[in-house]
């Protein structure tokens, strides 16, 4: 019997390369099969005009969001350079910068957690409760709420920042967060104290969630603690149509030219 390394050395090099490539292929096929979980439950036909429309709208939306981020940057720099000497402008700009951060219009990085949620692998036992085996809007909402309660200070799902006006809505298929339809795997990124994971793990609500969804229905829940988590800026509307400011003695006084 020759040892394994010796046998590998004896092979022509292309066979080794081919072997490695086939191994990678096998891995990818397995990943591919796993990815086709219970969510593939309708017969996939040719892309319908509705799918084409939805895809076109999604790419329109990406362009609009990119434009909003660009304009927000432009506004911030125009405001910063406007008549820079006056003390009043300087303090207004500092206040504006703080308000942008508070509103989630600025990306943040820092310590934190990334929780990944994936549909249960393998077909659902019956079509009747197939949706129990897929990640729902409610699942995402619970994870986000538990992260807030554990002390997170900024959260995004697949790049969509959670703001005071963010709703997480599902209609059975993809999940709507802000303006975007998101597909699994869902990555919930949260910035918070260094013990965020310990606090989350200690939560009864989170334990109940794991029990109800991961243990019972096989929803995949995993957590990673990278050195630094980035939560992107919110790219959406901050325009108020119905709300008016309330004049108060502490508000910034109006400035006359």
């Amino acid at each position, binding site marked *: 019997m020759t040892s394994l390394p010796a046998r590998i050395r004896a092979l022509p090099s292309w066979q080794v390369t081919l072997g490695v490539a086939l191994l990678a292929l096998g891995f990818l096929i397995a990943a591919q099969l796993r*990815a086709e979980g219970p969510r593939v439950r309708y017969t996939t036909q040719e892309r319908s005009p509705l799918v084409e429309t939805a895809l076109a709208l999604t790419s329109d939306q990406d362009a609009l969001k990119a434009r909003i981020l660009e304009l927000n940057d432009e506004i911030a720099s125009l405001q910063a350079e406007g008549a820079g000497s006056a003390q009043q402008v300087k303090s207004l700009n500092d206040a504006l910068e703080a308000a942008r951060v508070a509103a989630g219009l600025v990306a943040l990085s820092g310590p934190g957690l990334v929780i990944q949620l994936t549909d249960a692998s393998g077909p659902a036992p019956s079509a009747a409760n197939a949706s129990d085996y897929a990640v729902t809007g409610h699942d995402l909402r619970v994870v986000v709420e538990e992260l807030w309660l554990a002390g997170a*200070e900024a959260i995004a799902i697949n790049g969509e920042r959670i703001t005071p006006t963010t709703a997480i*809505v599902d209609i059975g298929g993809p999940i709507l967060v802000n303006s975007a339809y998101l*597909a699994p795997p869902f990555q919930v990124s949260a910035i918070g104290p260094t013990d965020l994971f310990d606090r989350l793990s200690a939560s009864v609500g989170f334990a109940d969630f794991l029990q109800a969804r991961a243990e019972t229905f096989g929803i995949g829940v995993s957590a990673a603690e990278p050195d630094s988590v980035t939560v992107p800026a919110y790219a959406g509307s901050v325009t108020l149509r*119905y709300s008016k400011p309330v004049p108060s003695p502490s508000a910034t006084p109006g400035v006359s030219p």
Partner: protein
Amino acid sequence: MNATRGRVAMTLVAVLLGFLVVLQIRNQDPGAQLSNASTEELTVIVANLSDRNDQLRTEVATLEREVSDLDAAKARGGSSLDELTRDLAKLRDWSGLDPVAGPGIQVTVAGAIDGDGVMALVNELRDAGAEALSADGIRLVAASVVAGPASGLSVEDHLLPSPFVLEAIGSSDTLTGALKRQGGIVAQLAVTYPEATITVTPVDRLLLAATGRDLQPAHGTPRL
């Protein structure tokens, strides 16, 4: 000839590999997801996307106007203090740092309902376009969570009485319609929480307080 055969085999494997990688990436893209949706779901998705894109377009127009105002002020050599003050007020109102007033609805929540049920209601109000929210006078910002069992609800370390009132600023017709439509959230909650009563009242003017939270990050650093 061994080398040629090897090269052919490797090329084939590389092509297959590339194909599978692309397939794998596509699977994580909403496009692949959409192909699996039913016609009913797709209709809702298209309607929603087109509606949200309109909102984003309006926002782009607003921001473009703001840029040209700032440019004009700069060209005049004057200061843009008015623009800065207006922008500051808008951002502080939107994020919950300042009190705001406006029309909207009051949702009275009575009886046995837990934090998850109340957050379902809050989520629905946000989806229906609520611009500002409060629970028993406590302003709800992104991180505010109403939590606890039916007998001990709290938000931001404040115990909620029973009944308590949720307030939402926005179009009172749209908000009321979203909550009370057939099969809507009020109907769903009536099934899950039979002991709870949810009453919706339109109001001409609500006044919502500022949040007590510090919204400046203590752990994250802005990436400018």
